[in-house]
């Protein structure tokens, strides 16, 4: 699991890639939180387009970032979750806290 962070205006985009579980989430959580605290973005986008697996550890990740972004008056969005990951999200009701969107930022769109 890796995360690439992009700063787009006042928006922080976290491009997640690989398998997201309890083990792998720890490293990327720290990276995202450091970027939030340095950049103080008004919105955070978590891009799941390249995530190949996610269990409920991913819900914990989103939930935690929603709290942090809420604390600095910002919002959190979920981008491009593949169908199976979307099912885990749906089950959790996380959509009430973070909007699910399809971004224009996909690799295939830039080809």
């Amino acid at each position, binding site marked *: 699991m890796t995360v690439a962070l992009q700063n787009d205006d006042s928006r922080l985009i976290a491009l997640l890639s690989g398998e997201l579980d*309890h083990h792998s989430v720890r490293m990327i959580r720290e990276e995202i939180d450091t970027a939030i605290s340095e950049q103080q973005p008004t919105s955070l986008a978590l891009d799941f387009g390249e995530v190949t*697996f996610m269990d409920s550890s991913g819900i914990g*990740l989103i939930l935690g970032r929603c709290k942090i972004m809420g604390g600095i008056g910002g919002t959190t969005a979920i981008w491009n979750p593949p169908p199976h990951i979307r099912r885990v999200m749906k*089950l959790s009701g996380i959509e009430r806290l973070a909007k699910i969107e399809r971004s224009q930022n996909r690799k295939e769109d830039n080809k």
Partner: protein
Amino acid sequence: MKTENSIRFIFPGISVNEQTSRAIASAFLVQADPTIEELADIRTAVSEAVTNAIVHGYRNIEGDVEICLKVLADREIYIRIKDKGCGIADVEKAMQPLFTTAESEERAGLGFAVMQSFMDSVHVRSKPGAGTTVIMRKKLRGVPCRTS
């Protein structure tokens, strides 16, 4: 019920093995021709149960996790995940969605809810101090993705 094939493996309850256990389960179960979605369901359920064993069962102690996978007649998948960790005092409460004893670690309390949603049945046997065994079953109903 007749067992067509089975595998049993034991590994230390450390978090890097969450991925290992999913990978082994996938590799073994491909022979039963699950659809991509069914395989994703099973991988997710296995991941939740193994994570529970590591995060909760072996919170303060070290120990092994044992997984037994079976392909039964009529394409039914049987999965048993067993730890010898601290056990659960109130299984019913532990299985309630959003109940967690590890909120500070951002555990969402959805492990059992995911297992129940993605598998046909989930049974939990546990006793404080005597570990936890989770037994899950799922019948494969989809049209196989392999043609052979």
